[in-house]
């Protein structure tokens, strides 16, 4: 097939679709803004960080989180679209977890936020399942050879989050202090929790 040479910019194409639907009266007032507000304000990796911090400090919560992360996250108010069935993956000193969606870019939006570009890139999606140790090292996480790696492919409806190991030297820290150590990268598994 021939490739057209006068392709409109993505911005112009987006505006074209938006105006075509709007002129037909199909977009309810405020509907687009409501979605954008949720995506930019409500879905936030800081939510996942709070879940991790709670799990580090409350053994009963951790037990509930590992048994039924969907309900445990909902206890903190994190639920909804792309959070219908969440499974928490607990890192251990001898086994690391990392998440990918090789076929599109599925993520647990309510606890991880919309995924970053690197997670959606063909490079990450193609490589991390096959050569996770090399990819993690390139991204700054150099795991010893004797640490096992599990790569979780988000191919169906389960949405994963990683519970990284609690850093040493954080005894007695508040949940808020602990949550500040947990990045989006740690929740996906390309990084550990930051050191104390």
């Amino acid at each position, binding site marked *: 097939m021939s490739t057209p040479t006068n392709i409109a910019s993505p911005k112009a194409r987006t*505006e074209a679709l938006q105006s075509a639907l709007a002129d037909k009266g*199909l977009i309810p007032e405020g509907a687009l803004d409501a979605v954008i507000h949720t995506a930019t304000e409500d879905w936030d990796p800081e939510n996942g960080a709070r879940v991790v911090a709670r799990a580090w400090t409350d053994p009963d919560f951790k037990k509930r989180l590992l048994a039924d992360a969907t309900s445990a996250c909902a206890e903190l108010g994190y639920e909804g679209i792309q959070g219908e069935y969440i499974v928490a993956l607990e890192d251990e000193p001898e086994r690391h977890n990392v998440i990918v969606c090789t076929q599109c870019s599925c993520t647990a939006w309510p606890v991880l936020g919309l995924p970053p570009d690197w997670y959606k890139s*063909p*490079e990450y999606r*193609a490589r991390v399942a096959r050569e996770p*140790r090399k990819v993690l090292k*390139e991204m700054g996480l150099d795991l010893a050879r004797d640490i096992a790696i599990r*790569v979780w*492919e988000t191919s169906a*409806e389960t949405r994963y989050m990683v519970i990284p190991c609690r850093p040493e030297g954080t005894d007695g820290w508040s949940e808020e202090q602990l949550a500040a150590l947990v990045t989006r990268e740690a929740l996906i598994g390309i990084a550990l929790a930051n050191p104390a």
Partner: protein
Amino acid sequence: MDGIHDLGGMAGFGAISYEENEPVFHEPWQATAFALNIVGIGVLRNHNADEYRHSIERMPPVHYLQACYYERVLTGAATLFVEKGVVTKEELEERAGGAFPLASPNAPDPMAELEPQPVARFTKGDRVLVKDIHPAGHTRVPRFCRGKTGTVLHVAPAFSFPDAAAHGGAFRKEHTYHVEFASTDLWADAGADNESVIVDLWDSYLEGVDA
């Protein structure tokens, strides 16, 4: 379909570019494109999530790889609004002031013949073989695990079967399983025997393996 979207294990890709403190959206049109698709699914009921995923899979491979994520979202959603008769390609191109490339049409016979499995057939610890299917339409079995044997780690609830839902097939729900494969069973050059890949697979993609 054995499409460009099914990237897992494909060789030749280079370093992953990483941006510190990346914003949710880099440009306002990306937020609008994302919202148009979500409204198309959740409010207008123009299409479902499986049709949406497949609309992106149907993009010509060169366009797929060159487009950023939100251009893929836009292209998939626009394709479905055109295919469902809500807007025309000509109208979109007139408004955009240029070409508006869409995805390629659906395959005429998109589904593999897979018997529905309403009741979970497998349990934790079972060895399962992934069927070596190559449907022309939407499926969620990555190529890298077809024909491979793994172990069930977890039985997830029953969810709508995407191969049917993407193509107007009869609604059916099946359990999915978190199936662990040794990386060395998937790729001869995989790094180490303490690496594994867990794939979330619907029941009818699988068959039992005698112990």
